[in-house]
């Protein structure tokens, strides 16, 4: 299974983390530190896999951002690499809140949905609702504003 997902910038700054195995906050920082020092120092043409504490970290760099996933050694590394790509492609089609998209793709450290359209559909439905709520709220506040005038 996937134990966690990290997005790290080239400078080692964290951009997104999601933990599927519980790690206490202290340990998280340590993990992030270790992983980024592992991943960021690797040359361009090397494997996209690194061993770490008996796990495998699969990473891929897009522009200045590293997408890292930590998996069990028995998992298929290439597949994980493609899950990362899958995620990035969906991000690409729908650029927005990376968390919600990740939630639609992965649940509990397993790949949940490999259908891009389905993911997008869900995320957009959710967003549509958000928009509707927003409009309602703003119109409501307009009404209130007008009423109080």
């Amino acid at each position, binding site marked *: 299974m996937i134990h966690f997902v990290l997005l790290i910038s080239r400078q080692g700054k964290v*951009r997104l983390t999601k933990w599927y195995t519980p790690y206490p906050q202290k340990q998280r920082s340590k993990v992030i530190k270790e992983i980024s020092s592992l991943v960021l120092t690797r040359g361009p043409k090397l494997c996209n896999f690194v061993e770490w504490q008996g796990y495998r970290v699969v990473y891929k760099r897009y*522009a200045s951002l590293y997408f890292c996933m930590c998996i069990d050694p028995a998992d298929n590394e290439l597949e994980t690499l493609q899950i990362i790509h899958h995620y990035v492609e969906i991000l690409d089609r729908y650029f927005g809140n990376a*968390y*919600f998209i990740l939630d639609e793709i992965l649940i509990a450290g397993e790949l949940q949905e490999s259908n891009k359209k389905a993911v997008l559909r869900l995320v957009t439905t959710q967003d549509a609702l958000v928009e509707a709520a927003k409009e309602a709220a703003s119109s409501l506040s307009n009404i209130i504003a007008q009423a109080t005038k």
Partner: protein
Amino acid sequence: MEQLRTIGRELAMGSQGGWGQSKEFLDLVKSIGEARSKAEEDRIIARELEHLKRRLADPDVPRRKMKELLLRLVYAEMLGHDASFGHIHAVKMTHDESLPLKRTGYLAVALFLDERHDLVILVVNTIQKDLRSDNYLVVCAALTAACRLIGEEAIPAVLPQVVELLAHPKEAVRKKAVMALHRFYQRSPSSVSHLVSNFRKRLCDNDPGVMGATLCPLYDLILEEPNAYKDLVVSFVNILKQVAERRLPTSYDYHQMPAPFIQIKLLKILAVLGSGDKQASGHMYTVLGDIFRKGDTASNIGNAILYECICCISSIFPNPKMLEAAAETTSKFLKSDSHNLKYMGIDALGRLIKINPDIAEEHQLAVIDCLEDPDDTLKRKTFELLYKMTKSTNVEVIVDRMIEYMINITDHHYKTEIASRCVELAEQFAPSNQWFIQTMNKVFEHAGDLVNIRVAHNLMRLIAEGFGEEDEGADSQLRSSAVDSYLRIVGEPKLPSSFLQIICWVLGEYGTADGKYSASYIIGKLCDVAEAHLTDDTVKAYAISGILKIFAFEIALGRKIDMLPECQTLVDELSASHSTDLQQRAYELQALLGLDKRAVESAMPADASCEDIEVDRNLSFLNSYVQQALENGAAPYIPESERSGVISVGSYKSQEQQETSAHTLRFEAYEMPKPSLALATSQVSMSTPPTDLVPVPDPGYYKEDHQTSRSQPSGDAISGEFGVKLRLDGVQKKWGRPTYSSSTPSSSASSQQATNGGSYSDGGGSTSSQARESSYGSKRQQGTEISAEKQRLAASLFGSAAAKADRKAQASRKASKENASAEKATASSAAPQPVKEQVIPEAPPPDLLDLGDEPVSSSPPSADPFSQLEGLLGPASATPVVSGAPATSTSKAPDLMSIFSDDVPTGATSGSTDPTLGDVNLIKGATTAAAKKGPSLQDALQKDATARQVGVTPTGNNPNLFKDLLG
């Protein structure tokens, strides 16, 4: 791609434009993005947290504003800061009526908390309520959060609703419900065990997404208990077939691949189900063949599927055609320029050699390349492969390499792993005691604190007892060489504690044994050790005990020795030590000095360390004392279990105690499956999954080999602990060896001729020989570029050092010897070698010719290679190579490439214990080779010579190489 880059850039800058966040938030994100140092970032976040704390404490924050504050909190916590003050607000927000806020609440809660957190109890109720919501998006949000937050205790609270949701009209909900149930299963298998049939139902879901999600829990369940799901094999195969035939909606395509992630999951499941089950495997071959045919090696995802196919094929009941396809794909991986593919190739090779060890030969240079690659990941993977193919003939090279690599790594985790592997290999395959001790010294010197202390004790025992079966002279030689090496090393700074313990013990026990060193010299050394390690009480204790022993031996011999001043100081110091243990040892020493010869002899007999101490666990010697006490009216002993029962009848408090104990009991019941799970994974991580149990070749051999195959467990010893796997073991042994693997003898030669001859002879797998031949040709072309050193390494890794003839001649002797030594050396490591050894003679003669090819290739072309070889091989192999009588030459030919053939138990039991059959094979191979090739030896010889002329620059010193290899 360009688009992706833009995305990446935008993400990297953290811009989240257009999301309705306030300027404050955007500014925060921007300033973090622009922060030049971690300190600056920390400052910004600290300021932000202060701000957020104030804002959140304000009761009048509008709800929409609250949402943003929470997101900022998430951001701060993600960057590693403590935002626990805000967690309760996230929990509160999950109660919100409005969906966007609720979702944000759930998101934040899921990111902040985990199942062990105290606040989760407050969320469970909300989740319960939301799971019943009419709005499916609310249900989805609740399910997602449930996956993260519901721990073992809370499962019953939400379980009914989740199960209900499995039949929800919306596929998104069904899917999430399946995943939630899976998560619950992972947390606590027993609490959902009655519900697993639901997964079966969901497998037939109309929506491919739900079906795909169902594969995840099913995989776990099947891993746990494959036999309960054998009935699904046909369904899985059908699904896989349909997926591969593009019957799923094209929106599941990924880079023109039909639903690859589902395919991979299915392949994983099939691998488990087909392992050790010929019938189940039979259903799979067709679809696996289809997938291989359609395999797309151009895309990553295509390769991922192919890799999974290889894993599956190496796990299920072997099929020659499948294995061939797998081997072909593996070689494509290895030849690829991409490091990723090479990595996968090495891994795949590690799986395939378990079934057919010969596959690796073709790739020896690729493997060496990977071993020398600057990429650490690749290197480690290659070490893993080498670890799997280690045996007594190449153990020296491999372990030396491992140690060399180990010295330079700083990663403790990996260092521990590789050190323990070195120890394991050395214990299992050590060619000589001397080498073993030297190797262990190196391991202890560089990673002494990382290896299990048990290993140190093992080493001491080994030095004390020798290897058992040899004469006393060899043992004492072993000891004195150990003493010599330790005296050399002992002065070095920074030796690990466990190593020093060994040194002190050995010096004390055997330092003066051979009379080479005087007692005072050894005592001086031991004093130095104790002085140099003031803080380490254990080392000091070992040192003082060592000194004590030396004194005792000297006194027993009737010699008088003077107390060295430094020793006196040490004793004085230790008798005033804070450690009572050290004190006692010091006083014992002083007391001993005052005793006469006879008393010392009986107090400290020489070589007492080898005596077995029998522990009387029943303490029967106390019986009379107990009896006496009982007669005098003492209360009888009540076992602990009964005692707690008696007490708990009493007060409320003890009742509670019992409750807790009942609770712990129940807890244990839950925990039970976990170890086996962990074990399963650890097994996999060691790449010896149960599925890799290699079937024992010929059905006919099974009965005859029963004895030997029993003594085979080696790597699978662990799996033997499990009933299921044990059973599997038996089943597998009943399988006949497929035609493919019966080509073993032939392919153990690296030559085309051999391959041809061999594969023709069993009529299978001959198709690839052409391809192989061509690949070989190209390899020869590259020959010039291959450095001599590399070749040497290849030869020492892949070429077997001992001549086959030698082995056959010595077979019985060696077998018994090795058997004995292995048993002595490690209780755990059963000895597959003795059986192994005997496989080799099967290899047909052309072996030699081509074997010669690798290492000889550096020799001057003018010389007659065979006479040269003969000379090199010396009396062991001597004669027959050129004589051309294949049958004879087989028995004598040294098989340089045979390592692979006897690497794995498969080959091992392949039953050459039955000489007749072996011979039949042999002759068959030989005759076919002759038939196909005419004067095959002549032919091969010529080919060999040309190859050398064309391919490789002669570099000379190969005689040395050969001596290294064969000597």
